[in-house]
């Protein structure tokens, strides 16, 4: 009499269902964000080194490669933010007495609205 049958986990399990694929994409955004943060640190280094180094970096930021890289980073960052805020009500359910505050309210109040405000402040600051 044989024992139980134990199927093995497929190596590319994350490609098998749509939810798994979306999950993997969501997690991979962290690679792009980490890459952007490294770039940001380099930018700060150049800023501290002086006018010439900073200007040279700004010049390179106008190259097609920089534009594409920023485009990818933006897509990843936005996807990351949207998935994060949509999950916030699940992580932080707010209850008033017996009633639960609707998920959309939490997502907007603790997520999308602060995002809008912070983004506005940053962009206004940089425009000056």
């Amino acid at each position, binding site marked *: 009499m044989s024992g139980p049958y134990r199927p093995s986990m497929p*190596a590319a399990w*994350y490609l098998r269902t749509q939810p798994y694929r979306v999950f*993997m994409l969501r*997690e*991979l955004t*962290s*690679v792009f*964000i*980490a890459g*952007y*943060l*490294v*770039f*940001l*640190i380099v*930018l*700060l*280094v150049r*800023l*501290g080194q002086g*006018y010439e180094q*900073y*200007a040279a970096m*700004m*010049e390179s*930021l*106008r190259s097609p490669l*920089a*534009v594409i890289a*920023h*485009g990818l*980073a*933006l897509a990843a*960052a*936005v996807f*990351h*933010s949207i998935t*994060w*805020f949509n999950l916030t009500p699940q992580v932080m359910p707010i209850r008033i007495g017996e009633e639960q505050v609707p998920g959309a309210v939490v997502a907007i109040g603790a*997520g999308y609205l*602060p*995002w809008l405000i*912070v*983004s*506005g402040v*940053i*962009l206004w*600051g*940089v*425009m*000056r």
Partner: protein
Amino acid sequence: MVAALVVPALVVATGLVLPWLTEPQTQASYDKLHAAVTWWPLRAALFVVVFLSLFHCAHRIRHVLADLGLKGAPRLLAVLCYGAALAGTVVAGMVLVRM
């Protein structure tokens, strides 16, 4: 959380606004930006953003790599990921202090 709130706008700032919508090549604009970053509250904010975001990314990248199959040396993986985040944080801190 911090990364989700701040990074998209920063990407637009450094990818679109700074190179294309302002005149970064002028000494005046450089001085303005440099002065702004020397302002202590902004220096502290930048440090916090970089520090928290780097560690958040390191944590998720560590798990992604394990999910993709790199499960042979979990301790080493953790050290590499968080170590890289720590290195980035230290560099950012040094740069910001000396700005």
